[in-house]
């Protein structure tokens, strides 16, 4: 998958998890999305695992600053 494809697919997941119309970009952070806290973060990651059929290890996702970094980790899986 390319980076852009990942972002587009992530967008769907985000909209579903946060029940809101969201437009993701590489620079999107938790401050930009209402309701993205530590609890919903874990839910989000698990949903991403299901949607992309991948599995994260705990320390891989320990320190993601923005959506761009998240996308990079996913891209490296394919």
């Amino acid at each position: 998958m390319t980076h852009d494809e990942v972002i587009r697919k992530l967008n769907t997941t985000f909209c579903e998890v946060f029940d809101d119309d969201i437009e993701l970009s590489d620079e999107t952070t938790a401050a930009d999305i209402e309701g993205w806290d530590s609890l919903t973060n874990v839910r989000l990651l698990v949903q991403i695992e299901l949607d992309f059929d991948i599995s994260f290890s705990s320390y891989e996702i320990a320190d993601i600053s923005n959506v761009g970094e998240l996308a990079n980790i996913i891209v490296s899986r394919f």
Partner: protein
Amino acid sequence: MLFNSYEFILLFLPITVIVYYRISSFDSRQLSLGFLAFASLFFYGWWNPSYLILISVSLVTNYFIGTTLQSENIQKRVKTLLLIVGIVFNLGLLSYYKYGGFIVEIVNDIYDRDINWANVILPLAISFFTFQQIAFLIDSAARRVKHSDFLEYVVFVTFFPQLIAGPIVHHKEMIPQFSSIKLNITSNHLKIGMMLFAIGLFKKVILADSISEYVAPIYDTAVDGQVTFLQAWIAGIGFTLQIYFDFSGYSDMALGAARMFGIILPINFNSPLKASSIIDFWSRWHITLVRFLTAYIYTPLSLRATRKAVMRKGKANSRTKTIDFITTLTIPTLITMFLSGFWHGAGYQFLVWGTLHGVYLVINHSWRMMLPAFVSDKKRYERFFRPFGLVITLLAVFFAMIYFRADNLEIANSMAASMIGLNGISLPEAIFNHLGEAKGIFLKIGIGPDTTTGSQITYGSIYCVVLLFIALVLPNSLDMMRNYTPALNYSIKKHERDDLYSNNKLVHFLIWKPNRFWAITCGITLAVGLMSLQRLSVFLYWQF
């Protein structure tokens, strides 16, 4: 060495900055970093040179283990073992120096013994550099670390602006800065750095230290007996404001000092009292510590349980929903906040403080989860509820802070009891005397006059009001400097952008630029701070 001392502000900092600028003309990264390492270790060893042995051992051991963990040729089992050895080493040092006495106290309490633990002097900064290096080890094992040489590593851990009391920096935000350390520093760095430092000094020396003069006597009273309802409230609100400006001031001084060397540290404090929920509060108070605990404790604990919960989403019944709620949220949150309390101090009162906040968070998250059932219009709800949320959050924070400040659990409980009116509710004597005929009624329902020192209550209240205004209404130092990247990861939260950029003249007035007005303001602020240094000052986050 403390930031708020003459030797630091008038000697160490200026000399270090000047020498650093001279050295950068040699255009050698090694030399520049070497000097920073030397200065930082000098700074650390100032109080007690024997600490240097401890930190050197820690640095060398962690660097060696970390670098080994980064290698590609290492077997998985060896890697895990080595990582555990590394973490145990770090936590072991921390436990010995910081928690030895407390652990013995707990053992004594449980088993009714009387073991003696000789008081070990707590080495400075040990909580900070321990956590910083543990993060480094874990990320090395996950191979998310770009290799750095030993010199870069030393500066990363010991860089004096962040060494003593944070922020807890992450290697990936620091190493690139040290690798490409700008050898031609612009004068803007100095100006930004000085402004931030001046603001921080002012907050610490003028704001925090003034209100502490009204808080300390109340805590002293509590040692011998009860405090009144009013006193407890002034202590709760006052201490919260004291530690707020203490920590906020320190964070600003750290940011400022680092900036003078062209280094940008991560954000650690962002107007926490403006939070409209306790969840929001913890995204603004001690941001780097919360970041660490969330990444290495909360998320791993919650991840497995959440996978199970999401798997059975379709087939969930009320029993499994309760289990999921406990395993995905309640337990990870309570453990994380309990550990946060434990990290802050070796005493039962800190554990209570941490656990209280854990409970607050669980309640807050539960509320958020239940909302969609009653509220259809999220935006209207948020606009309406925000002021209530703000007040509830403030009250929760004030209450829990009583525990943070008290010397022990007994005093804390006594003050907390007074705060919720268990020891009677009192009004200021002056106000009570004006009640006239109604006095009788008030007395009947248990509200009486407060006969403790009138001026203490009056001045204490005034200080609380003024400082609360500053904390709740004014833009903070980062907001003021926002056109010049004052800190990493600083971003204005979405709902605040509209507020801040609205027709708020005060905000526009208080935006920093490198012009003469701000230069003069900086000078005055610094001078005022310097002149007030003579007063006795307690720096709270010092003991970590």
